[in-house]
């Protein structure tokens, strides 16, 4: 068992999938000879050949479109988009075909493909390199949206995504690509695509997040702990279809909920979770729901991007407000 980074776990999972299933192919810009701009496909072209680890011309709409044709013909394409900020030309294919081919043909044809893209900020990248637009994908019926937050979950969830008969958008928190190492057994074990992960049990407040922000959320839970407050931390991991039951069960216990994500506030996926709490968890709520999110702006350039970031301090403050309610005014996280 080797210690690997999150991006290392992605490489492991891709290599395992290529080895186990001859129908798996990878495609994308610079993923072959160069091993991907983040090295997620490092070594795979040499091991599996340029026909299965395909360097494509520069055209995202086509990458998605050819993947549809490959998948319908029985391959299992895993398409890399270099940054989430460059995935938009592919959205037409995702909405119009990837998510619909099975439904349109009543299952005669299907689209078992994976769209991989690194997402999120904090790497001092230029504009368009810090996007967190997972909510756009989570509003598209017919696909699954999956976001890992640790090497082990990256490995198991990616294998599950590749093995899934359904199309999966798999977004990787690039800020965490190399920040932690973890022992990951390359045993081909998948993790479930229909469950949240409870990363930490707690009594006083439920912190719900996914992907990159899990880091700050766990730090906040730690800080709260030092202040004698016990936070439960849920990694949603699979945004859609959503395992709301796990979140509701937690909030039933704690009575407070802080939802954390890096994407802009308005219309972020946090809204869906908060909305479902307002529908199905209202009686459990002892305080207003809090969202700690990115602002409704374009993430500022590297010189000032830290101002956009979701920090452990912001999460801790929101959690403390929720717990102190009604003694302190609520809902200021991103009013």
């Amino acid at each position, binding site marked *: 068992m080797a210690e690997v980074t999150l991006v290392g776990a992605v490489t492991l999972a891709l290599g395992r999938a290529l080895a186990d299933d001859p129908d798996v192919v990878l495609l994308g810009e610079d993923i072959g000879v160069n091993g991907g701009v983040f090295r997620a496909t490092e070594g795979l072209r040499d091991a599996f050949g340029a026909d299965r680890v395909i360097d494509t011309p520069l055209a995202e709409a*086509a990458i998605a*479109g050819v993947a549809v044709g490959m998948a319908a*013909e029985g391959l299992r394409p895993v398409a890399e988009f270099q940054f989430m900020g460059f995935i938009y030309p592919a959205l037409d294919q995702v909405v119009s075909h990837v998510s619909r081919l099975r439904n349109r043909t009543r299952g005669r044809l299907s689209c078992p493909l994976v769209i991989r893209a690194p997402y999120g900020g904090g790497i001092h990248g230029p504009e368009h390199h810090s996007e967190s637009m997972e909510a756009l994908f989570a509003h598209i019926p017919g696909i699954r949206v999956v976001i890992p937050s640790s090497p082990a979950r990256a490995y198991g969830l990616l294998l599950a995504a590749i093995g899934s008969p359904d199309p999966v958008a798999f977004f990787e928190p690039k800020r965490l690509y190399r920040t932690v190492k973890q022992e990951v057994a390359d045993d081909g074990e998948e993790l479930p695509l229909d469950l949240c992960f409870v990363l930490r049990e707690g009594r006083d407040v439920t912190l719900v997040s996914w992907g990159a922000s899990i880091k700050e959320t766990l730090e906040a839970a730690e800080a709260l702990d030092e202040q004698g407050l016990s936070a439960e931390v849920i990694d949603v991991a699979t945004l859609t279809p959503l395992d709301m039951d796990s979140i509701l069960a937690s909030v039933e216990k704690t009575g407070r909920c802080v939802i954390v994500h890096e994407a802009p506030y308005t219309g972020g996926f946090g809204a869906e979770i908060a909305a479902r709490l307002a529908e199905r968890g209202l009686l459990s709520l002892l305080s207003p729901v809090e969202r700690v999110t990115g602002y409704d702006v374009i993430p500022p350039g590297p010189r000032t991007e830290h101002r956009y970031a979701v920090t452990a301090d912001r999460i801790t403050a929101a959690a403390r407000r929720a717990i102190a309610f009604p003694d302190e005014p609520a809902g200021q996280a991103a009013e």
Partner: protein
Amino acid sequence: MAGPEIPFTRYIDAEGRAVAALPNSAGTQVLTRLYREMVMARRFDAKMISLQRTGRIPTYPPTLGQEAFHIGLAHAMAEDDALFPTYRDMPSQLARGITLAEALLILGGDERGNDFAGPRADFPQAIPIATQVTHAVGAAYAMKLRGERRAALAIIGDGGTSKGDFYEAMNFAGVWRAPVVFAINNNGWAISMPRDRQSAAGTLAQKSIAAGIPGEQADGNDAVAVYDVIGRALARARDGGGPSVVECLTHRLTDHSTADDASRYRDPGPLSEQWKEEPVQRLRTYLSDEGLWSKEDEEQLIAEIDSRLEETVDGHAASTPPPPEAMFDHLYAEVPADLAGQRRQVMARFAGETGEGDGHG
């Protein structure tokens, strides 16, 4: 700018005369089969328009005038090739083997029609323009990767060739030498937009030069030319010769769709000239002149087609719509837990409706 040289193929002219020796592949059997199916396409089209006018199917895109294109290319394909059609290509699908009942389901807005028993690798019709062409390239890549002797054929309209997808598809196909043929149905119009305002390119075939792949033109009113040129392009693709573009020059002899009124934007003058080039009469003249088709053959064919069409329409009228929960059941391989509540709710709402006939209208 002077345009590049683009080959043009025609065997039978507007008067039904052979202007070149017909290719060997176009023997008597093939010719009569092409003709029979073109007549089917034309009568099917007329039937659909009348169904639409009487509110029995929604908006319908006519195929009048494009029969040689649709039938010629369908017969140029091998059974295990894969077709990537648009909303206007039902005649090709029928000629490829989907049933009339399936066609009527599709046109009636019932997804079950796309689960056709016929050519199982064929895609359903693409409605968003030009989105199907990259699918064809991906499928072709898969065929090549597996060493299969198959090819993909994507149909695209003249309007569709303005979209980036078309260009990106050609470019990928060129780099990959993928076994795919792009068949352009240049019917002169994209709704109200005439071909010459769609692009300043002298031909649409020359767009292939941008991707470094061969392009040529065929007379799309000549079923033999379409059959031959696309047949050769497909054979070359299957043999590892790479992709190509075939622009077929047709005329859209009627409205864009039943929701359209072409008189708003189209001069009647040229249209009546275009009628003189229409493909069904042309092939009939040729076959008759060659002694391969008689008045009796024609009468028998029409009677046969019409009775099949009547039967199909009646069958469709008697069919029941899919059950209410169907909208949930084919989205994912299994219905996810998160959808179960919505599904239950819909089943409850429409509990009375299943099997009670068409809810449409």
